């Protein structure tokens, strides 16, 4: 237990001077059009919406609002490209285009990272070290599959689907675009992609990269807008497949809209992952895993380890260490290279998170936040933990999508499994123990698409990702990710 005699102090001494990433090298246009049929075209309605920097609330750019007519145009351009060059192209040549996109992302990595950080609020360190390199890695990985599809599914003939409509979220804008585009293109499909309305800029920079890569016109079309634009894609009769990543709530609406149509779909939805720490775990590394699990990307991660289960005998120790570790997390300017936790993505999301903080307190949970100061303007939430909560608390049950962790304790293996599975979600999980056998038992017992052992939030293009239960349908990444964009025939 922390007492005045054994309390560590992290503030008031040596502090890191600001180390902001330069933005001299980036180009953000005043206005972005729609990317349809290889051209940047104005929206039919003539309407644009603002995209703002959530760390300053200042406008970064204006972005075209795509209406039904624009979506129709984009789907037709995609169909034309599918029937034309793309589906008839030699698979190896298709692969070359995808490799080219990957290389351009690498060449422009600094620009992509800075814009991702500006538009979405995530720390430059994460954009630079995670989002952008992984996005390039996905294109590289799937480029390699383009001419090897017959080996991916032995004994079956793989055929492309046609036009894929893809709707992506705001938490990993460029990376999610890569997750969606790379396998779709490698499998010979053409695409209409809609980025999230709060984070459209890197998708538009990606459109520029795709244009520079010389992809045949119409193979990739990017339309910007909010829910209505997404709905127009989902309900368009010319779309053969829908791939959606976002909330379970919207996923349900999409599933309803698709019922009765013969459109294929994959849905990657919400999560409330259990991160389970046994007493025999490497405790200090497990504490890092907790931090990485819930505070990575401000907790705007569908697979975030938002429910912590700690074995009772080490709970006090783990929580004390976690609280001290939280004091060392730097919250602030996302462009500062030392920032650990950036801005909450939008005002709406901040309000949602804050409402959950109130709910948690009202339900009797004990809240603890790090003592750091946050900037006056912009959207911020200090890293937060709730103790004294149980399975019946809403902060334990519902996806908050912010830097908020609900902590419970357990005594036995079976209790941990039972609590971990007692959720409508099943996207991811984590287990921390020094015993290999316990890891295997846990991975067989927890119903989740991904389970990390002695680590958390690790991603690789070769590894499939996706959920059980209300966390979604289908898998992305790896070999499984190809399946989602192919029709397999005997």
């Amino acid at each position, binding site marked *: 237990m*922390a*007492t005045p*005699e*054994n309390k*560590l*102090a*992290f*503030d*008031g*001494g*040596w*502090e*890191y*001077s*600001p*180390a902001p990433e330069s933005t001299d090298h980036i180009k953000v246009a005043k206005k972005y059009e729609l990317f349809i049929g290889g051209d940047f075209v104005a929206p039919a309605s003539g309407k644009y919406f603002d995209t703002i920097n959530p760390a300053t609330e200042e406008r970064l750019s204006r972005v075209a609002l795509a209406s039904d007519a624009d979506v129709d145009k984009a789907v037709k351009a995609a169909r034309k490209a599918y029937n034309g060059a793309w589906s008839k192209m030699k698979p190896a040549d298709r692969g070359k285009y995808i490799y080219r996109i990957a290389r351009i992302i690498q060449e422009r990595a600094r620009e992509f990272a800075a814009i991702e950080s500006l538009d979405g609020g995530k720390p430059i*360190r994460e954009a630079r*070290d995670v989002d952008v390199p992984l996005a390039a890695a996905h294109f590289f990985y799937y480029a390699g599959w383009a001419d090897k599809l017959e080996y991916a599914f032995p004994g079956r003939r793989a055929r492309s689907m046609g036009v894929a409509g893809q709707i992506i979220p705001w938490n990993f804008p460029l990376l999610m675009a890569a997750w969606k585009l790379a396998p779709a293109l490698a499998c010979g499909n053409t695409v209409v992609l809609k980025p999230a309305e709060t984070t459209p800029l890197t998708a538009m920079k990606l459109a520029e990269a795709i244009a520079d890569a010389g992809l045949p016109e119409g193979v990739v079309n990017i339309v910007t807008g909010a829910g209505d634009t997404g709905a127009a894609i989902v309900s368009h009769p010319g779309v053969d497949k829908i791939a959606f990543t976002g909330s379970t709530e919207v996923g349900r609406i999409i599933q309803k809209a698709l019922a009765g149509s013969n459109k294929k779909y994959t849905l990657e939805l919400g999560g409330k992952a259990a991160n389970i720490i046994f007493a*025999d*775990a*490497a*405790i*200090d*590394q*497990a504490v*890092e*895993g907790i931090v990485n699990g819930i505070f990575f990307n401000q907790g705007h991660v569908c697979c975030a380890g938002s429910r912590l289960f700690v074995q009772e005998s080490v709970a006090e*120790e783990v929580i*004390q260490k976690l609280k*001290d570790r939280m004091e*060392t997390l730097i919250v602030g300017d996302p462009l500062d*290279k*030392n920032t650990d936790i950036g801005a909450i993505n939008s005002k709406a999301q901040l309000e949602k998170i804050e409402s959950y903080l109130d709910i948690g307190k009202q339900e009797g949970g004990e809240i603890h936040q790090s003592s750091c100061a946050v900037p006056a303007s912009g959207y911020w939430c200090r890293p937060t933990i709730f103790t004294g909560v149980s399975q019946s608390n809403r902060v334990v049950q519902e996806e908050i999508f912010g830097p908020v962790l609900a902590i419970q304790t357990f005594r036995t293996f079976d209790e941990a499994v039972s609590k971990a599975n007692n959720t409508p979600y099943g996207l991811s999980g984590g287990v921390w123990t*020094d015993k290999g056998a316990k890891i295997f038992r846990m991975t067989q017992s927890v119903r989740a698409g991904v389970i990390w052992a*002695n*680590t958390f939030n690790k991603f690789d293009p070769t590894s499939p990702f996706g959920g059980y239960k209300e966390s979604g349908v289908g898998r992305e990444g790896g070999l499984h990710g190809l399946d989602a964009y192919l029709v397999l025939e005997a």
Partner: protein
Amino acid sequence: MSLAAVDTKRKLPDLDRVPRVDEVGVNERVARFQSRSIKKESKLAALRMVLSMIDLTTLEGQDTPGKVRQLCQKAMHLHDSVPGLPHVAAVCVYPTMVGVARKALEGRGIHIASVATAFPSGQAPLSVKLEDTRMAVEQGADEIDMVISRGAFLAGDCAFVFDEIAAIKEACGDAHLKVILETGELGTLDRVRRASVLAMHAGADFIKTSTGKIQPAATMQVTLVMLQAIRDYFYDTGRMVGMKPAGGISSAKLAIHYLVMLHETVGNAWMTPEWFRFGASSLANDVLMQIVKQQTGVYQSADYFSKD
């Protein structure tokens, strides 16, 4: 639970209860420290802090009184063309050289550290080690850097190692005891963690990574594990134990990474020469070069900095 009582009684703790260490996780954490960007004022403050934490060291068979006097001169006059620089924390020498250093450093506020206990191997009977220690203290050492018996530790005889440290601690009297684990011979981070706990419970005022005679010497990985052990011991007892990575830290940049690690693991209270030291022979000049660069904007030739 308060272990303060245990501490005064010097009881060997149950080492099976020491937390396990996961090497992959340690490497990841270290990489995060290394990705911190320390610029401008924070860099200058760090460089000055590094200087003040150096145990300027010469531990060679060929050491002579003349060599030690040179070292002491350097310790007092790091780079006089930059006024207001801190002096190093201590000079670190063999017991036979303690008297020479004492005379050279009289009244300058620079501590004299002496290795003892049949440094670097520690392969001598306890009576010899105790005599070695007493002799160094009598000659005027403020700090004793002892080595643990790695053979006994690796063979599982932790009680032997514990008793030896406790006995040396008694022999030190008022001198501070730094316990060298020689992590390069321990093999795993789990053992580093256990040896750290053992040493602190046996009475160590400081725990130290290496003699500098075995590779690898100090690494950020072992230093992190030892700092986490120090922090846990502080949580349990409220007693602060110091940390000294030694050997292999020769660049200012690496030293600053160590300070970042210190800052984010145990916090501000440890960020003084009283609680953190760098055992190094060539670090000071690289730090001085960086300080001059920060002040003038240009790097000067190494020839402008006195070697010893």
